[in-house]
């Protein structure tokens, strides 16, 4: 069943945000933002810096609490859940400024990503019983699948601290995938990547959607990537929703153009009078 791309009305939505607002002191970072993310689609948030996109992510990850408005995931209210319960619900995220575990190897980072599926508790771990051993083997199998998907084999035992930026972004993505989420939040996946790496990222996002069946909600600035992979786009500016629709619809929206490029009036004063 192909979703109706413009209005997204197939089945129950995975994530529903209603009138979300969050205020930090005097600053209204997010103002009455509403949107729905359908299962299996790639939904992108765009907007100039400071528009509140990462703040929306932080609201979903429960790092912040909304001042007003609600967030529902699979019908459940998110705002009464503590941050560490978000992973168990099936939401994974990557961070804008990479938050990897620097003093651990890539493999260990991925295995930590697998934490919610760990199966064996503290006492079992302490004596490394059969249950722990089996849990470990299952975790490694899961991690290896992700390593295969993203081509991280040569880096498996490297410490993250020594890796270049581009590779770290891939590890960050891999770690989020190890959580086997239903919803993946990608915060600026292509920032800092060169053309080839961005190309790889585009392929991976498409693979994530089609092969793994994961819904992707991402924040992105690179418009070519946005147009290529997104099903629907939400444009934000100064904490408010500007436009919602397919990439083409949103990019043609006058409000969006004004937010990015400014209006005709802004530049008219620069126009030289005809000689």
């Amino acid at each position, binding site marked *: 069943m192909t979703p109706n791309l413009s209005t997204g009305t197939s089945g129950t939505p995975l994530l529903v945000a209603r009138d979300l607002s969050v205020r930090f002191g005097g600053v209204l970072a997010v103002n009455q933002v509403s949107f729905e993310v359908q299962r299996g689609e790639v939904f992108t948030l765009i907007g100039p810096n400071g528009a509140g996109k990462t703040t929306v992510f932080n609201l979903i990850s429960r790092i912040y609490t909304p001042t007003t408005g609600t967030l529902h995931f699979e019908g459940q209210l998110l705002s009464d859940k503590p941050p560490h319960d978000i992973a168990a619900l099936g939401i994974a995220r990557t961070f*804008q400024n990479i*938050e990897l575990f620097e003093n651990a190897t890539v493999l260990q980072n991925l295995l930590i990503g697998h934490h919610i599926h760990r199966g064996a508790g503290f006492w079992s771990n302490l004596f490394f019983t059969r249950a722990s051993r089996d849990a470990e083997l299952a975790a490694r199998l899961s991690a290896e699948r992700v390593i295969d998907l993203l081509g991280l084999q040569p880096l498996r035992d490297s410490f993250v601290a020594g890796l270049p930026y581009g590779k770290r972004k891939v590890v960050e993505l891999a770690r989020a995938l190890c959580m086997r989420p239903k919803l993946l939040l990608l915060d600026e996946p292509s920032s800092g990547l060169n053309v080839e790496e961005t190309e790889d990222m585009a392929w991976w996002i498409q693979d994530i959607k089609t092969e793994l069946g994961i819904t992707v909600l991402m924040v992105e600035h690179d418009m070519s990537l946005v147009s290529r992979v997104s099903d629907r786009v939400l444009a934000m500016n100064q904490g408010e929703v500007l436009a919602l629709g397919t990439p083409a619809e949103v990019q043609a929206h006058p409000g969006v153009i004004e937010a990015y490029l400014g209006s005709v009036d802004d530049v008219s004063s620069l126009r030289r009078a005809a000689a």
Partner: protein
Amino acid sequence: MAFVQLLISGISLGCIYALIALGFVLIYKATETVNFAQGELMMLGAFGGLVLMKLAGWSFWFAAPLAVVGMFMFGMALERLVIRPIMGQPQFTIVMLTIGVGYTARGLISMIPEIGTETHTLDVPYKGEVINIAGAVISLEQVAIIGVTAVLCALLYLMFRYSKLGIAMQATSQNQLAAYYMGIPVRRINGLVWGLSAAVAALAGLLLAPITFVHANMGYIGLKAFPAAVVGGFGSLPGAIVGGLVIGLVEAFAGFYLPEGFKDIAAYVVVLVMLVVKPNGLFGGNLRKKV
């Protein structure tokens, strides 16, 4: 009148804690490192004054400022030689380094024959004199402590608020790399901060000397200044003062009203309560990392 007496002794002890805590917070505000050797710097300042007075025979009014200036230079040298190489390393590493500095300083002093191994008195000119206020007997030493602390706070406030140096210090503490880019001489600033901190510690030592006498283990009092800094909020200078006063008063009253032994741990109990109730201290800012 026991109340007023306790109040005064609490405030004056609190001022000592405040001065030491001020030293911590100065360094923390500027370089986000914690100096566990602050107590030992205080001890060195007191010994400096002692040596200048006993061996060189100079009067207190000459020896004391000289000791303070000497410790300023020592603080700068310490930063240059020992702290600078590891700037940017995790906090724990720097804490361990300063613990090492403290150990070494204490050990070296107690190795000096005669001076280091004995307890000495510092002959301050106002020693032993008392004044009477509202029936309470206050020694001039306590008055000196309170007075000097007040003046110092005012001077530091003016410096941080209005001088370029103060603002530069705040900039280097928040983002060292950006401070470099802005043309702030970061390394020189760090040196100055450590120098200033050591000078404040020396001042505390000289003020404390008439009360506790000068000996190699004087630095342990510095440990009580940590609760003071935490109670006030580690990044806040007024917090250090308020925290010091709080701890001083709590100790004074606990010593009088509570059974034996509570006085020693009163400060620490206050810290733990504070960390549960208001983890960032009275004046501390929000410590959340932005992601």
